[in-house]
């Protein structure tokens, strides 16, 4: 039982200072919501203006993207292809390395090794993306050209690899947390049934931690799709509908940068293309995030 006089004392305190604090916190929370709403609003408004001049059929039906030139085409696919290609390369690098690093850190590494290795790995995420961009352009590409002579100076491969390195810590760190959260009892039960260490990890621990791992991968995919600086510097600026990682491509984000830096007058159709591309990008990451939630729910075990 709560003493009635004490409970009224608490209420009296809440009415003054704490209510103010509560409001302040609410305002902070609302700020992010409002910002998101404003961004979506502006994006939608300009995108609608864009689609009053360019039909959806052109946008999704054409295979060329040349809005700044004499022969204008508004097919979004070359930009989407560039984005998907670089992101796929990045994930192809980050997923195996990130996941195996997570398994090692969580299951095998001695505490001393782990103390050094984990922060070092996370340091990768702290490197400014412009550094990765120039790393891809002036170090990675010339190196790769020795192995693949027909690789162009601007290509999808090397920024994709750089991006992959960048998002390794995202996957490894979050996955490691998920693996760590799997209770000891499950492992012990597996050992008791005669499973080896590897069997325990790959048949018991990883499936149990799957929702956390999947979430980390989806987060990494979103990051790769939205990454701008690396691809703007090292992938080239040529919209091209291709799956060939050796030739110059342009991603959706790189296109937005290209127009943003030029002298394209505001309010023109050319200018509005960046909002249409931005909206498409937003839609893409939105769908990815939705998919991840579905995925996570499906895989959710008792401990994920």
């Amino acid at each position, binding site marked *: 039982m709560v003493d009635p006089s004490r409970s009224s004392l608490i209420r009296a305190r809440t009415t003054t200072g704490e209510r103010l604090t509560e409001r302040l916190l609410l305002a902070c929370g609302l700020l992010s919501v409002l910002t998101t709403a404003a961004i979506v609003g502006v994006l939608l408004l300009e995108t609608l203006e864009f689609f009053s001049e360019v039909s959806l059929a052109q946008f999704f039906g054409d295979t060329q993207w040349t809005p700044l030139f*004499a*022969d204008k085409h508004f097919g979004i696919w070359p930009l989407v292809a560039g984005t998907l290609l670089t992101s796929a390369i990045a994930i192809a690098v980050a997923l195996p390395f990130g996941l195996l690093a997570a398994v090692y850190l969580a299951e095998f590494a001695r505490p001393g090794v782990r103390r050094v290795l984990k922060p070092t790995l996370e340091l990768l995420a702290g490197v400014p993306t412009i550094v990765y961009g120039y790393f891809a352009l002036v170090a990675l590409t010339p190196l790769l050209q020795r192995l693949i002579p027909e690789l*162009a100076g*601007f290509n999808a491969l090397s920024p994709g690899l750089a991006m992959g390195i960048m998002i390794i810590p995202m996957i490894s760190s979050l996955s490691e947390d998920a693996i760590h959260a799997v209770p000891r009892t499950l492992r012990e039960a597996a050992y008791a049934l005669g499973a080896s260490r590897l069997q325990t990890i790959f048949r018991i621990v990883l499936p149990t931690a799957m929702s956390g791992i999947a979430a980390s991968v989806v987060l990494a995919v979103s990051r790769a799709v939205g990454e701008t600086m690396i691809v703007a510097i090292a992938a080239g600026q040529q919209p091209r509908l291709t799956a060939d990682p050796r*030739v*110059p491509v342009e991603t959706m984000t790189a296109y937005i940068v290209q127009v943003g830096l030029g*002298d394209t007058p505001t309010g023109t159709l050319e200018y509005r293309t960046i909002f249409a591309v931005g909206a498409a990008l937003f839609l893409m990451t939105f769908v990815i995030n939705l998919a991840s939630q579905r995925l996570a729910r499906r895989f959710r075990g008792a401990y994920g």
Partner: protein
Amino acid sequence: MRRALATFCLGVSLGSLGACGPGTTDIVAVDGSSTVYPITEAVAEEFQKGGRGRVTIGVSGTGGGFKKLCKGEVALSGASRPIRPSEVELCKEARIDYIELPVAYDGIAVVVHPDNAWVDHLSVEELRRMWEPAAQDRIKRWSDVREGWPDTELHLFGPGVDSGTYDYFTKAIVGQEHSSRGDFTSSEDDNVLVQGVSTDRGALGFFGFAYYSENADKLRVVPVDGGAGPILPSLQTVADGSYQPLSRPIFIYVSRKEAERGEVAAFVDFYLDSSAELVAEVGYVPLPDPAYALVRRRFAAKTTGSVFGGEGSKVGASVEQTLANG
């Protein structure tokens, strides 16, 4: 990058930081083309050493520079093509008269990767076939350009659509200003183009001659046949007008009203006197001496209006002849 540069004032001597733009009386405000910028910068540096005034330089491109000139925001503007009718109109509305002064020649260099062994020269016709709007999504391999060339993918690199160099190239090659295919790597930053062409065996690009001479070890320049046989761009062939149609005069446009101010007049006089020497130093081609004399006379007489343009890029114009006729 342009916008960032435009807000950045260069050549401001110590103690006058923050005093960018007009308003402060003894400052000469300059803006305009990135192609002309290296010349103006060199001239301004020398000018300020003499302590005769201060110069601020922005880089908003040829078009952006004209916009500012016609708003009365700057004393003079650099231009890599003559003024366009729409810009003439803009200045007229604001009652700003301008004095058109050619300061140098620039050749547009067509370059390929140094390992490209098959391109011996390119005719204007072949360049047109590569760059015209109809080439978009059609001319994709070197073998599409000339029979016998390898079946290698063709990767094109060129300046952005806001640049005077792009305007001039399309006018000279395709026949219509601002008309080209859209599926090439276009960048406002000429160094990106150099980087692209120098690391890509299937590449072909074009940009101002100064950027080629700076990177001559990483690129191979292609002779262009404008009808009189293949000609390599060089100081010589650009100056004597034989590198056609890809050599062009570049300009500064001075506001007539601003030219009344002592320091502006002093700066322009200094510009024209030192051009012959400084232009070569930064990698462009000086006008012949008689042409500089005509240009100086034009400024002394404060002759306004344009004899080169009024209609944008003009192909194959000799400065001396045009000035003498105008």
